């Protein structure tokens, strides 16, 4: 039976709501969008008359710009709500904020919030489709899609590919969404980091491999992804010093040689050079890190296009 994608009006809370066929369809659509981004005049009229709201309760300039650029390039109107300079700062509830925004005629929300599950709330309050731009430590599906897109574009068939993700797994929404998406597409995922930064039950939940030793974790990897290590984890008593962390978990020429030759190097950014990754790796020919950012716009364009039912 032929696959007929149904995307109009859907939410993107996380990738578990999407089948592997649907994820591949999004990637194909993103490929088309990427082509638009390489043109001299980077704009198509497909979402003219639609209004996209970026509702950023947690600050993130990069992700917000990516969403806004994506909407602009599809000719949607974009309104930007930033908590740090808004009514939420004055104690307004998320519910009242969404009611207010909704009264202005929003067609699609892109939300970033420190609380897991808040995209679901925005949908509940507004009845409009919501794209999750990162909710606490829970999920970051557009980041996962752009990561998967980046690998797919370089290596083609994803089935059987081995990826190792290294760092603060406990606090990473990127890892959780990637685990769901990558497993659906047949990839073998290994997560690696110190035990104090590793959530429980990972094998059982995601069917991934958990490895505490970096060299073991990197063996045979086709792709290696580093994660940002945040300084405040130290004050939470989760590890003693950046130096000691780096000694055991940094991605360097020395450690990366345990992975496959020419393994792709990824990082969701922003990077702490010298802590989780050395410049010799981040800026190498194997690195996809800058490409990931470009692909982020394309993937977000594809989602907006599909959800708002844009016309080709």
């Amino acid at each position, binding site marked *: 039976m032929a696959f007929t994608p149904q995307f109009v009006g859907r939410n993107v809370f996380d990738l578990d709501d999407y089948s592997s066929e649907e994820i591949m369809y999004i990637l194909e659509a993103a490929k088309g969008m990427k082509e638009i981004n390489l043109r001299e005049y980077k704009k198509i009229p497909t979402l003219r008359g639609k209004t996209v709201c970026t509702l950023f309760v947690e600050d993130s300039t990069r992700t917000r710009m990516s969403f806004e650029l994506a909407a602009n390039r599809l000719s949607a109107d974009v309104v930007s709500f930033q908590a740090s300079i808004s009514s939420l700062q004055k104690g307004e509830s998320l519910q009242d904020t969404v009611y207010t925004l909704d009264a202005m005629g929003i067609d699609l929300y892109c939300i970033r919030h420190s609380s897991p599950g808040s995209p679901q709330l925005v949908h509940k309050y507004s009845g409009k489709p919501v794209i999750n731009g990162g909710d606490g430590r829970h999920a970051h599906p557009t980041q996962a899609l752009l990561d998967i897109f980046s690998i797919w574009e370089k290596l083609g068939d994803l089935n059987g590919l081995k990826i190792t993700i290294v760092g603060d797994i406990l606090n990473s929404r990127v890892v959780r969404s990637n685990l769901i998406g990558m497993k659906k597409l047949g990839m073998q995922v290994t997560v690696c980091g110190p035990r104090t930064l590793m959530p429980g039950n990972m094998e*059982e939940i995601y069917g991934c491999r958990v490895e505490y030793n970096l060299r073991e974790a990197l063996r045979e990897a086709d792709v290696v992804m580093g994660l940002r290590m945040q300084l405040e984890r130290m004050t939470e008593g989760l590890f003693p010093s950046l130096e000691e962390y780096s000694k055991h978990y940094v991605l360097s020429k020395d450690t990366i040689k345990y992975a496959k030759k020419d393994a792709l190097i990824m990082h969701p950014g922003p990077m702490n050079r010298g802590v989780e990754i050395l410049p010799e790796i981040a800026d190498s020919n194997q690195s996809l890190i800058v490409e990931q950012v470009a692909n982020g716009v394309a993937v977000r364009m594809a989602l907006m296009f599909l959800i708002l039912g844009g016309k080709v």
Partner: protein
Amino acid sequence: MTTLIKNGTAYINGKFEARDILVKNDKIHKVAKHIADKADAVIDAAGMHVFPGFTDIHVHLRDPGQTYKEDIVSGTRAAAHGGFTSLCTMPNTDPVVDNIATVDYIQRRAKDLGYARVYVVGAMTKKSEGLEISEMATMQSGGIVAVSDDGKCVQNSKLMLNCMRYATNFGLPLIVHAEDYNLSGKGQIHAGKIASQLGLTGIPGLAEEVIISRDIMLAANTKSRLHIAHISTARSIAIVREAKQEGIQVTCEVTPHHLLLTEDACRGFDTNTKMKPPLRTEKDRLACLEALREGVIDCVATDHAPHADFEKVREFDHAPFGIIGLETAFPALYHHLVKPGFLRLERLAEALTSAPAKILGLPHSELKPGDPADLTVIDLSGSTTFDAENILSKSKNTPWLNQTLSSRVIYTILEGRITWQAEA
């Protein structure tokens, strides 16, 4: 004034038997197979079960100070709707019940306006701050039945030791909400599979078990009467079982939600699954059920914790902990445990009547002549739907919202006075 409850099946001496019950004023006057006496009012309880009024030793009435969540009238009406005739209020109101004036306020208001008998639990430490011992003895002269810092937990072991010594001096039992703050931290739900998946910070079972172990050791040392509130893990139960075998005076309660739900209920970010202690694993739930059956867990208590919609319907990690429980307790437990055969009705009846009363030494009815006429008449073949309209609590924060559960409380009678009557 006399009321005759005819043709019902009554819970007497641990068994259900066909009995008529004649109530005269506020007391039970006669209990027999057939009572032919004339009465001012007759309740036909044919096909129904008659219980002594239920007792809940763990309730938050939110009065004084947070009466937008609940007050003494709405809270006791909810109790009557759930078949309860007696309840104990926890002291974490605003102000905290750490003084005789507040004890007196609650008791007078409950006596004047309440639909249930209200016993007051006083704070164990001043403002429940865990720094200095409260005026327990003064509050006792005002009528408190126990001390507790429920919702909070004394972290300083030396202070806890002294609280026990002091309370025991006056024969007051201590009720403990067991939570090591460093271990629970900013946790939202049980530190298990679902927390890992949802990216929510976890509260490990250890946070409870460490304090239960400590307080059992302190209680053994001070020979105090320790009651552990809302026990929730298999390991906690193992610790209590061992202490009981050693003859240490320790009792514990379990909530309906810890008997019926697990961490899996948190999947959809429903804040009505957020409470302390958190919903645990299936293994823990089954351990709670087994311990209730064998008596290691002494009784059921609801931890009725009302919160308004605007507080509860919001981001998961910003919502307060707690759910209401008075109205759903019996129907939920009957529906999910008794009806499918996991728990005997006799044991549930005991766990809601004589068992909790015994823990705190509260007077209660055993449906014997001379006992207070506190009765609950339930139609087990009926059903109750809990929607925002018919929940009598001011707050509607329950995971059973909009669900229909087997059984229906038809009458609740407090000292001969009808406090709840179902619509025909």
